[in-house]
């Protein structure tokens, strides 16, 4: 028994020694005046754990495959130009770090989702401080665990939706940390499908064709301190559970079918301390249940909140609704959503007992928004005198608008958020 | 020359002029158009000015039909019956404005002097008394030296001094060879001034002739009496034929005013 144990410990020690000897990292330098003139040569010469240092210059290479754990580092932002020929860097090994590169001109393909950097089925990739310019897809993560995507700049070239790829595209991943990236000019800035237990923090996704963030079938994720602005349709979060979103800014998502945030079939989620500013629709909610909206700022949106199709048990508390054209549209007659302690700039009740909340409940649904919901064509009468008169008379004596959509404790002063 | 040919005019059911044929050919002559209230005097004059459009018939001035024309009004000085002016204009502004719009030579200064309007030139028209307004009205009407002069109730509101000046002015116009048409209710004025009388009754010409003729025809001492005679006769016929109440009333009221 002891012999066997000794044998095994010996075996273990030799194995350990062997690995440490092999892991003695070497640095392979790539550059016009270095050992390796091309990146491909360096990649194939490198052993696991080596550092590949790419010096400044332009490398017309593509189809580079990283099949062992490497630390690929750019010095002075070397440019990897695929000349519209295809994917640049494909990572099919664990523990690869890519840093300080500029990858450009991947080229549009209608058959394959070519990317600047692709990570396939491996764990612990770190991709940071890179610049991706005119890459069809930027960073493409496919069945990846524990990747860190940090501080990259991704700028696509705006084309039509079919010939644009996504900035950061993640599919079937887990434990991603997407942080401080800047994404613009793609179809979707950040795309999540079947991605769980991940974080999206401090990113800025602006001026993308469709969504700043597109988020589907992904549970237990959080995103906060991001800014989503001027995207074609805003941010879409769909078919997901247990998502927490806080301190994000959704602004200027302004277009005929645009919104700050689209929630569709979302359950058990908290949306807190976000800013929704100048969006056609602040939050467009379809069939979402048990969602808490707290301390959000809704300012100058067309509709602050539009709820459709069975939204139950939503709790809308202590938000600011300022200068929105319409504060709320609710299209279902069954309503058990609660509105409490919000500030509504349209509220003109009084506060006799001076407790800071109005003594008369506020009805956030105007008659016009009720009619619009029934007859969307009525929007041609937007801002007509008749509509103002109608809203006023409905406010004085409500007949049509849902009687149970009420804020019983409207705040008299804007809440400081 | 002025010629009315078969003029008919109705305001709704009220037939004001029922076939008027009338010619004024002689210049240097004053014709008085008389008749009870509602007999169509003012309508007749307004149709001459194109302000009222006759339903039937035509009017010619100097041989030209006036319908839809406007330049012929250069030939006419017109004094409207009731002096109504834009209230917040000053007298001088009003005169200047009409002169500006119409252009050409005017003798407004002479008339202002004649009627003693100098102190009122800076007053707003709304603040003037009836008599002063009538003086302004006269000045406006007569300041253009036109061959035809039409005065609708020129005497209303005038004080005796102004009345004398008016008469003098009219005589002067006559002497200048103008054709003068006057409507009035003041019979002494007519007797004194008019060369001929056109008497309108119920929208028709009842009588036309000189003052002397009307007096002899009705065996009356004065014009007033003659007119009263005509109206009484009319009243009698009206009674026989059971005249409508309004005709009776109009005659009665005329008797009172005259």
């Amino acid at each position, binding site marked *: 028994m002891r012999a066997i144990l000794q044998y095994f410990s010996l075996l273990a020690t030799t194995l350990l020694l062997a690995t440490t000897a092999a892991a003695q990292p070497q640095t392979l330098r790539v550059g016009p005046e270095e050992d390796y003139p091309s990146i491909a040569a360096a990649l194939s010469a490198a052993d696991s754990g080596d550092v590949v240092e790419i010096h400044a210059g332009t490398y017309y290479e593509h189809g580079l495959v990283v099949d062992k754990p490497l630390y690929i580092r750019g010095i002075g932002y070397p440019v990897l130009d695929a000349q519209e020929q295809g994917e640049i860097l494909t990572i099919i090994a664990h523990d690869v770090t890519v840093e300080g590169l500029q990858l450009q001109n991947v080229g549009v393909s209608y058959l394959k989702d070519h990317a600047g950097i692709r990570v396939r089925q491996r764990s612990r990739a770190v991709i940071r401080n890179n610049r991706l310019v005119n890459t069809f897809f930027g960073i493409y993560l496919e069945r990846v665990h524990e990747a860190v995507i940090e501080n990259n700049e991704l700028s696509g070239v705006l084309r039509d939706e079919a010939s644009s790829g996504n900035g950061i595209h993640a599919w079937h991943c887990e434990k991603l940390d997407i942080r401080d990236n800047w994404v613009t000019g793609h179809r979707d800035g950040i795309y999540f499908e079947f991605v769980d237990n991940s974080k999206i923090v401090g990113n800025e996704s602006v001026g993308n064709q469709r969504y700043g963030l597109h988020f589907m079938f992904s549970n237990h994720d959080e995103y906060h301190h991001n800014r989503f602005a001027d995207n074609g349709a805003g941010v879409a979060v769909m078919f997901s559970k247990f998502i927490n979103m806080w301190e994000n800014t959704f602004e200027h998502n302004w277009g005929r079918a645009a919104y700050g945030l689209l929630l569709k079939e979302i359950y058990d989620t908290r949306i807190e301390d976000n800013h929704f500013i100048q969006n056609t629709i602040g939050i467009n909610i379809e069939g979402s249940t048990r969602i808490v909206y707290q301390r959000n700022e809704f300012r100058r949106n067309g509709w602050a909140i539009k709820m459709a199709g069975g939204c139950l048990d939503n709790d809308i508390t202590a938000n600011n609704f300022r200068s929105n054209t319409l504060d709320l549209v609710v299209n279902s007659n069954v309503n058990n959503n609660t509105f409490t302690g919000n500030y509504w700039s349209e509220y003109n009740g009084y506060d006799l007992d001076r407790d800071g909340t109005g003594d008369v409940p506020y009805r956030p649904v105007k008659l016009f928004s009720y009619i619009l919901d029934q007859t969307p064509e009525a929007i*041609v009468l937007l801002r007509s005198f008749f509509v103002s008169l109608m809203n006023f008379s409905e406010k004085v004596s409500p007949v049509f608008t849902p009687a149970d959509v009420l804020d019983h404790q409207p705040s008299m002063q804007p809440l400081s958020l | 020359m002025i010629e009315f040919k078969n003029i008919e005019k109705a305001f709704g059911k009220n037939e004001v002029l029922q076939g008027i044929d009338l010619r004024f050919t002689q210049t240097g002559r004053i014709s008085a158009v008389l008749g009870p209230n509602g007999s169509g005097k003012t309508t007749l004059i307004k149709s001459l000015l*194109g302000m009222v459009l006759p339903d039937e018939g035509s009017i010619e001035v100097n041989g030209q039909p006036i319908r839809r024309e406007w330049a012929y009004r250069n030939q006419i000085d017109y004094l409207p019956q009731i002096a109504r002016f834009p209230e917040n204009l000053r007298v001088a502004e009003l005169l200047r404005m009409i002169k500006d719009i119409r252009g050409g030579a005017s003798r407004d200064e002479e008339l202002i002097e004649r009627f003693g309007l100098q102190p009122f030139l800076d007053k707003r028209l709304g603040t003037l008394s009836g008599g002063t307004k009538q003086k302004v009205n006269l000045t406006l009407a007569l300041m253009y030296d036109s061959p035809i002069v039409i005065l609708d109730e020129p005497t209303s509101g005038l004080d005796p001094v102004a009345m004398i000046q008016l008469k003098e002015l009219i005589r002067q116009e006559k002497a200048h060879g103008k054709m003068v048409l006057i409507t009035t209710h003041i019979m002494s004025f007519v007797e004194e001034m008019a060369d001929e009388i056109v008497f309108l009754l119920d929208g028709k010409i009842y009588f036309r002739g000189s003052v002397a003729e009307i007096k002899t025809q009705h065996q009356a001492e004065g014009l007033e009496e003659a007119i009263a005679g005509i109206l009484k006769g009319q009243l009698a016929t009206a009674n026989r034929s059971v005249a409508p109440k309004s005709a009776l009333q109009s005659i009665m009221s005329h008797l009172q005013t005259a």
Partner: protein
Amino acid sequence: MLKILKYSTYDLLRSRWAYLYLAFFLLFSGGLLYLSGDVSKVVISLMNVILILCPLIATMFGVMYYYNSREFTELLLAQPIRRRTIFWGQYLGLAISLSVSLVIGIGIPFVAYGILHGPETWNFFTLISNGVLLTFIFSGLAFLIGLKNENKIRGFGLAIVLWLFFAVVYDGLFLLSLILFKEYPLEGFSLAATVLNPIDLSRIMILLKLDISALMGYTGAVFQKFLGTALGMGLSLLTLALWTGLPVWTIQRAAKQKDF
């Protein structure tokens, strides 16, 4: 006509009303700009006011002016002047002096604010020109009401009814038919109904210039498309021209046949 126009304008500019109107716009647009500082928002608030007020003031003031200037009119009728010259002159005098009040009242604050160098310049011009157009249309209609009605009270009544109809009732009926016939495609109807009411047409033309048009969704897109085509723009301008021209033409006709 220029002389009549000159004196009508002169007469109107002396009346207290023109100044009140001017002062209102000065204070209102100046105040809004000062308080909000956001041109786009101010343009929207002003749009609401202009769409209600310009037609209202033009009709009421138009009828009032017509009746008040009857003496002047009668005085002019005896002068050697064409009838249509008199009425067109007075109408233009009215419409121009109201428009001048509007343009100055809104223009001064905006120009002082630097609108001429900002991106909102065109929105501002759309707003102003629609206000002016509405003023012309509704003062023409008011003049027509005056001409057709000797009775002042009746005239004022009709003027109020006219304004109420175009500013309120029309939209009410419009909305009602949209609701009643919502099963049917309504774009064509909406377009027609909008184009036929000068107030609605102005509102849509202004709204489509502003970024608020995004709120109008599909229907807005239909309008944008319609107004974007030469045909659509031509039709809208034609309707506005008709709305301006028709009263003017009818004024001339009515004036020709009227006894004074």
